[in-house]
C-alpha cells in the first residue's frame, strides 16, 4: 500500500519546526507514525506536508522538578512504563502505556502522539476500496455520518489508552507555536468533535506533559478491555485514581465518547465515601449516563455501558490490592 505523496520536512529544533508549521498550516506532525501513516495508507488523511519532529533532541525525557513530573512529547511509550518513577508512583500511566497496541507500537509510539491520535470509527478506519461502496463520511471529508445519520456531526470515538490515565492524574500539557507557549489542562485539549478531536490551532505542537507531584501519593490503575488485548484498540478502557486519606476519587473512560471521558458526576458521587461494590456500581451507572457511546465499532452501546461498570470495579480492586502489597 503506497503512501500518498507529500512534502517532507525534518527540522532539527523546535524553533525550526514551529516556523515550518507556520508556513504550512495544513502539515501533519510525524512522531512515532503508528497512527498517522496507517491513516495515510488508507487515504483518510492526505496531508500536503509532513513535519518529522523525531530529530528534535530535547523532547525525550522524564524528569521531576518544580513540584511536577515532566515528560517530553517524544518519550516513547516503552520508555514510560520501563521508568521506575512512573511504574511505581504513577501506575495508571504505566499500565496505559503498556496497554497500547503491540510491543512494536510501544517502541515506536510516543506519549504525545498517543494523546493526539485520531478518533476511530468502523466506517473511517478502512481502506479506500472498502469505503468506496458508501458516500464519504464527515470524518473523511464527506457530508454524511453512517453511524448517526440524522445529525450533521462526526461521531467517531476517541480510543487512546494514555488519555484517560493522564486525565485522572490531572495532567497539564504545554503547547508551543511560533507566537507563544501555553499551558492548558489536558482535559481542555479534547474538543468532543469527532471530525477535529483536538483543540489545537494550526501550527501548534504539544511539547510537554506535566503531572503534579501530589498525584504520586494516590493509588491508581488503568484497565483496557479489548478483543485481542495486545493488538486491538480498547472496546472500553478505564482509569482510576484515589487519595485514600481524603477519600477523593477520579474516574475516566476511553472509547465511550468522542473524547476521553472524565466522569465528573460519578466522581462527585464517590467523593467522601468508602468504596464498596454497590457504591461503585451506582457510580458506574452515573458515568454510563454521561458517556455517549454510539456504534462506531462492532460492539453495541449497551455492551459498552455495562463494561464501564465491570471495568471500574476491577480497576479499583486491582489498584487497591497493589497499593496494599
Amino acid at each position, binding site marked *: 500500500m503506497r503512501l500518498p505523496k507529500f512534502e517532507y520536512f525534518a527540522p532539527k529544533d523546535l524553533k525550526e519546526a514551529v516556523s515550518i508549521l507556520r508556513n504550512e498550516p495544513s502539515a501533519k506532525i510525524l512522531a512515532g507514525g503508528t497512527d498517522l501513516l496507517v491513516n495515510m495508507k488508507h487515504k483518510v488523511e492526505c496531508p500536503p506536508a509532513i513535519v518529522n519532529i523525531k530529530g528534535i533532541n530535547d523532547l525525550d525525557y522524564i524528569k521531576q522538578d518544580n513540584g511536577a513530573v515532566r515528560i517530553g512529547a517524544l518519550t516513547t511509550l516503552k520508555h514510560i512504563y520501563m521508568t521506575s518513577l512512573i511504574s511505581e508512583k504513577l501506575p495508571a500511566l504505566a499500565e496505559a502505556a503498556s496497554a497500547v497496541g503491540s*510491543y512494536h507500537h510501544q517502541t515506536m509510539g510516543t506519549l504525545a502522539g498517543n494523546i493526539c491520535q485520531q478518533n476511530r470509527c468502523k466506517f473511517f478506519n478502512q481502506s479506500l476500496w472498502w469505503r468506496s461502496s458508501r458516500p464519504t463520511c464527515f470524518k473523511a471529508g464527506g457530508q454524511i455520518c453512517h453511524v448517526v445519520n440524522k445529525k450533521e456531526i462526526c461521531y467517531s470515538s476517541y480510543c487512546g489508552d494514555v488519555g484517560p490515565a493522564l486525565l485522572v492524574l490531572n495532567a497539564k500539557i504545554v503547547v508551543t507555536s511560533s507566537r507563544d507557549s501555553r499551558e492548558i489542562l489536558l482535559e481542555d485539549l479534547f474538543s468532543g468533535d469527532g471530525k477535529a478531536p483536538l483543540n489545537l490551532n494550526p501550527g501548534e505542537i504539544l511539547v510537554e506533559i506535566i503531572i503534579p507531584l501530589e498525584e504520586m501519593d494516590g493509588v491508581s490503575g488503568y484497565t483496557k478491555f479489548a478483543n485481542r488485548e495486545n493488538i486491538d484498540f480498547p472496546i472500553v478502557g478505564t482509569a482510576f485514581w484515589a487519595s485514600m486519606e481524603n477519600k477523593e476519587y477520579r474516574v475516566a473512560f476511553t472509547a465511550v465518547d468522542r473524547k476521553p471521558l472524565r466522569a465528573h458526576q460519578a466522581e462527585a458521587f464517590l467523593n467522601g465515601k468508602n468504596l464498596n461494590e454497590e457504591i461503585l456500581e451506582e457510580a458506574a451507572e452515573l458515568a454510563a449516563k454521561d458517556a455517549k457511546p454510539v456504534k462506531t465499532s462492532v460492539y453495541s452501546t449497551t455492551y459498552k455501558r455495562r463494561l464501564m461498570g465491570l471495568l471500574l470495579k476491577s480497576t479499583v480492586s486491582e489498584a487497591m490490592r497493589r497499593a496494599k502489597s
Partner: protein
Amino acid sequence: MKQAIELNINGDTHEILVSPNNTLLEVLRDKLGLMGTKRGCDLGACGACTVLINGDAYLSCIMLAVDAIGKEILTIEGLAEGGDLHPLQRSFVENGGLQCGFCTPGMILTAKAILDEEKHPTEEVIKRKMAGNLCRCTGYKKIFEAVMSVTEQSGKEF
C-alpha cells in the same frame, strides 16, 4: 521529489534514491532486494515486517525510509555472522519453530529485541511482547518453545 539518502543496513552503507513517501519496507524489498523482511498486512498490525532500528523492534511498513537516516538497521539477512546462525535462528530450526516461514523473520527479530532488553524474561513477558507478531499457520507453541529454549541457555550472549 526523489532524494539520495544513505542507510546503514546490516553494517553496510547503501546509497539509495527514494521519495519521502517510500516506507523503509518498500526500500528494503523493492530497491535493495532484501526480501527477508516480509510485507504482510502493510498496516502495522501483523509484525511480519519487523526490523531492528538501533536494536529496537520497529515495523518497517509504517516507518518512512527517510526517517531511518543515521540509524542502524538490522534485517534478518544481517543476523547470522559469517555463515553461523544466530542462537535464535538455530533454536527455531531445532525446535521446528516455523511452518510456512513467512512470519519467521519478524518473530526472530522481535525475540532478539526482547532478549537484548532482558536476558531472562518470564514466559508471560515473552507471550505479551510477541503478541504483535501473527502466525497464520498458528504454530505459536513451537515458536514460543524456540524462544524459551534460547532464554534457558545461561551465559549466552546475543
